[in-house]
């Protein structure tokens, strides 16, 4: 079964070579002329407004956590989806209960305002 992955490994190696060459092409082929103005970040003409290592809004963190929860749900749905035909109605009822529980979670998150991005 593991020898299925030879194709994957070879594609990885080929793609890594091609992309590595592409990314380093400018470093190898382009001129290297340093200038003070080039070292500053681009802010449409304003002087740089400070380092990027500051704070940003907590709703991105919330979004990531909610993503984890629903991604794990998707992971549980995949094996069930493959064997659905042999599980019959009891399997369908069980998974409906599971999805309903997660639907309640989605509704809670929705009502609490964690999905508000404005």
């Amino acid at each position: 079964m593991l020898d299925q992955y030879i194709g994957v490994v070879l594609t990885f190696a080929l793609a890594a070579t091609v992309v590595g060459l592409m990314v380093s092409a400018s470093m190898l082929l382009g001129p290297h002329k340093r200038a003070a103005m080039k070292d500053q970040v681009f802010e449409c003409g304003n002087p740089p407004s400070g380092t990027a290592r500051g704070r940003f809004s907590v709703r991105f963190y919330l979004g990531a956590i909610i993503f984890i929860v629903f991604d794990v749900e998707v992971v549980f749905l995949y094996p069930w989806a493959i064997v659905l035909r042999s599980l019959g109605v009891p399997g369908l009822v069980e998974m409906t209960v599971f999805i309903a529980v997660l639907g309640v979670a989605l509704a809670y998150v929705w009502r609490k305002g964690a999905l508000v991005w404005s």
Partner: protein
Amino acid sequence: MWADAGIAAATSLVVLLLVLSLCFVLLWVERKGSALIQDRIGANRANIFGGILPFNLGIVNTMIADPIKMFTKEDVVPADADKLLHFLGPFLAVFPVLVIFAVVPFGDVLVIGGHSVDLQAAHLDVGILYVLAMSGLAVYGIVLGGWASNSRWALLGAIRGSAQMISYEIAMGLALIGTVMTFGTLDLQAIARAQGAHLWGVVPAWGVLYQPLGFLIFLIAGIAESKRVPFDIPEGESELTCGFFTEYSGSKQACFMLSDFAEIVVVSGLVTTLFFGAWQVPFLARDGWHFPGGLTLAMPHLAIVALQVASFILKVLLFCCLQILVRWSLPRYRYDQLMDLGWKRLLPLALVNVLVTGIVIVLAG
């Protein structure tokens, strides 16, 4: 074993060349297509060798001069940027997208001298899971690209871009569950073969007939993943300069552009494989044509393979053109509208799709 590795290497090479050349062609199609849609001519001049030649083609401009220019420009890295991450960002933006195509079948079997070669770089049993895994890796490129630039605006674009990508990944994953339930397998070549059947003898049993809602959700989520208009806030062409890849020049910027076109090709390839019969030509089986009404025509094996590969490439091109058409026709979504679409509309719709498909399969068989 060496023969297997050799065959795998050959198919991997073919697949990579296919994706890269389709990206290359799409550069030109996008420029000329957008020009046609906007009722202008587009690039049709190039000054070759100082005007000696009697023709000047825009195609030379776009497909030869532009790439050469991008690869030989200076690589400007801001002073406090993290050099390793600055290199890794574009790498991780392109690499996962290119390798997704390893599991997309571009044809049925090719029989050469008694050896039967599956026209797919890697015949994995878990093809769809591999696809979702690799598209999850692509988020890293965006985040690293924005973080490594050490620019507040690039970082903001990167964070919003990654939040958008992970939201639509759930919609993508859920939309595919309907397809997995219908065909009962994660193997993409098996799904492609299963779409060779004909309903009522006439209509090809393509995935879109079984899962129309799944197709729509997957297509919308795929376009959102690739951060194209109408979902291109992180890139924000008219707003934040280039968003998360403002601080990249030369070939690193070319890599981010390539990731854009490569994602178009990959989304088109997946939609074709799962919903539009992959390489299947209606009424064409492995040994020849089988028309309804009983007429059968035998055809040489190589001709059949060529027809099937051509049909795959044609379908992929069609969906790429559809995405280009969508890009130049629709205005951009505002960020909260975009996230609302992902979480509050596509996600519940996809869950409903899963439940309805499950009920139909279990009760109707």
